[in-house]
């Protein structure tokens, strides 16, 4: 069991290492001289040279990579080219705001969609299933900005309950942001839930048709016991990975929604740093997203281990 965990963690670290190399290389491979592009065409050669030195562009790529990762390990992601502040602190501030949305989204989307998906699976081919399946198909067919726009139309314009845009900057307190969190979270939850609902439905149907569930029924157990004790552990297993992928997707998914609501989160920072070619910030965001992705998948693997004794007891037989 410990060796299983150790192997998974090791694989996760390996993936993370590869991701960091890819991110670094991709940013390096961007065409044109970064210094010139940041400063504009009519920058003085002195300024360009100074920036090149600040970015250490004159040193070989691998040295810069080692510097960067070594710094990143201590939370030092360099200095923003735009604001001149430490990237770590700045990204952290935006990240905290986004985490607020993400937390609420995940909480609602995961519980809600699991319930709906299991319901649809149990009532296969009857009206609750048809309703839930249709709604989730629409949910996954509509882009986030459309969902967000429609929500604004409904709950800010027609029925002014929530603010349409956030008027605070990244330093806003949780109390200031809280009223503005709900609509973005709802938009993300709708888009995200569609996938989890479909997965949960399919795996419930698969498991309910399995031989061991039939056996449990033929043992004379009550439906409730058959579903909760026999079917659900097996049905949740494949759903876990879809949940993990969707939670990881939030890291990029927030970009669009936060821009619709002008919410000061990591997605908005991502967009503005791309516009300003603020390379250290882009690198930091990419690396943090990769960490989220790897962490989510690791969590799903460990969750699978908890649900599946076959993984837990390997090597004990």
């Amino acid at each position: 069991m410990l060796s299983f965990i150790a192997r998974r963690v090791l694989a996760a670290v390996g993936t993370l290492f590869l991701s960091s190399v890819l991110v670094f290389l991709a940013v390096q491979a961007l065409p044109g001289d970064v210094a010139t592009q940041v400063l504009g065409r009519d920058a003085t050669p002195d300024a360009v040279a100074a920036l090149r030195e600040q970015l250490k562009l004159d040193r070989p790529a691998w040295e810069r990579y080692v510097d960067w990762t070594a710094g990143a390990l201590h939370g030092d992601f360099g200095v923003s080219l735009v604001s001149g502040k430490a990237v770590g602190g700045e990204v952290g501030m935006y990240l905290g705001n986004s985490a607020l949305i993400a937390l609420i989204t995940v909480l609602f989307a995961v519980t809600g969609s699991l319930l709906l998906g299991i319901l649809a699976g149990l009532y296969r081919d009857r009206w609750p299933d048809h309703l839930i399946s249709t709604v989730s198909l629409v949910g996954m067919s509509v882009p986030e900005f459309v969902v967000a726009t429609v929500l604004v139309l409904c709950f800010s314009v027609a029925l002014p309950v929530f603010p349409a845009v956030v008027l605070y900057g990244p330093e806003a307190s949780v109390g200031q942001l809280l009223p503005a969190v709900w609509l973005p979270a709802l938009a993300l939850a709708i888009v995200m839930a569609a996938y989890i609902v479909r997965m949960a439905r399919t795996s419930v149907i698969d498991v309910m048709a399995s031989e061991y569930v039939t056996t449990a029924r033929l043992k004379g157990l009550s439906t409730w016991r058959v579903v909760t004790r026999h079917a659900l552990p097996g049905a949740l297993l494949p759903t876990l990975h879809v949940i993990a992928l969707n939670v990881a997707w939030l890291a990029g998914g927030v970009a669009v929604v936060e821009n619709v609501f002008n919410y000061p989160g990591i997605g908005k920072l991502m967009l503005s740093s791309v516009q300003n070619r603020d390379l250290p910030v882009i690198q930091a965001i990419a690396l943090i997203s990769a960490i989220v992705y790897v962490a989510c998948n690791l969590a799903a693997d460990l969750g699978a281990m908890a649900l599946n004794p076959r993984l837990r007891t390997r090597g004990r037989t």
Partner: protein
Amino acid sequence: MTTLETPAPAPAAPLAKPSTAARAWRTLRSSRAATIGLAIVAVHVLIALLAPVLTSYDPIANNADQALLGPSWEHLAGTDQYGRDVLTRVLYGGRYALGVSVTATLLTVALGTVAGCAAALRGGWFDDVLGRVLDAVLSVPPVLVLLVVVTALGTGPSVIVLAIAVVYVPQVVRVVRGAALAIVPADYVTAARARGEGTWAILRREVLPNITDVVCVEFAMRASWVVLLISSLSFLGFGADPPTPDWGLMVAENRTAITVVPMASLAPIIALATLVIGLNLAADALSKAWGVDRVREGR
């Protein structure tokens, strides 16, 4: 000697040979959802092709004194803030979305299929290394990759197509590899190996024909994702350049005036949503009819 003679072979009763086309046709007839889905997509393609015939307005030219009109007989969906006919822009808008999406999806699925099959068939270190690299690519959000590529290389269609291939190929590889892995241990592949056939011949003759359905479903589904991603990109201002008629761009432009001319935002939203619903319906129905498990890969 034996009294029991070798029995004569039983004659084969005549049976229709089902071709792939016949199979697809049967699927269509038996599944209403597939018919509806493919019909919606077909209508979108037709509209995109026939846009100049369907409307007499210019989708790009500004007309200041016609700005922000409500629906009327001249402008069925009203006009936007620059006085352009919204319906015309919606009809033309499919051209960009469909053109880029179809090309990008074709490229993505083709690359992913070849790499996925090769990984499944070769196995060993090749499979391991490919898997690790693809996992690393997957860990960076597609939106971020696209934003960076587009700002660096411009918003040309070929750039977007390539960028999409980079972010979505890993997922296609995973799906196709999984499907191919289910075929590789089959005895008919073993038989081909025992004959000493080459990797490419086994791939083409034995593996590919058995995963065409997976690849078709994959195509329909990726196409829907690509349409969504491209429209999001346009919405953020990183996709189609402003005067171009594009649905994502139109929503972004007209969102601020949504209370004045709601149709200017709603029309492109409806167009976009129907196209993606059509693709999803088709993908769902085909996968159901062909027994392909597509739900398993949420994102």
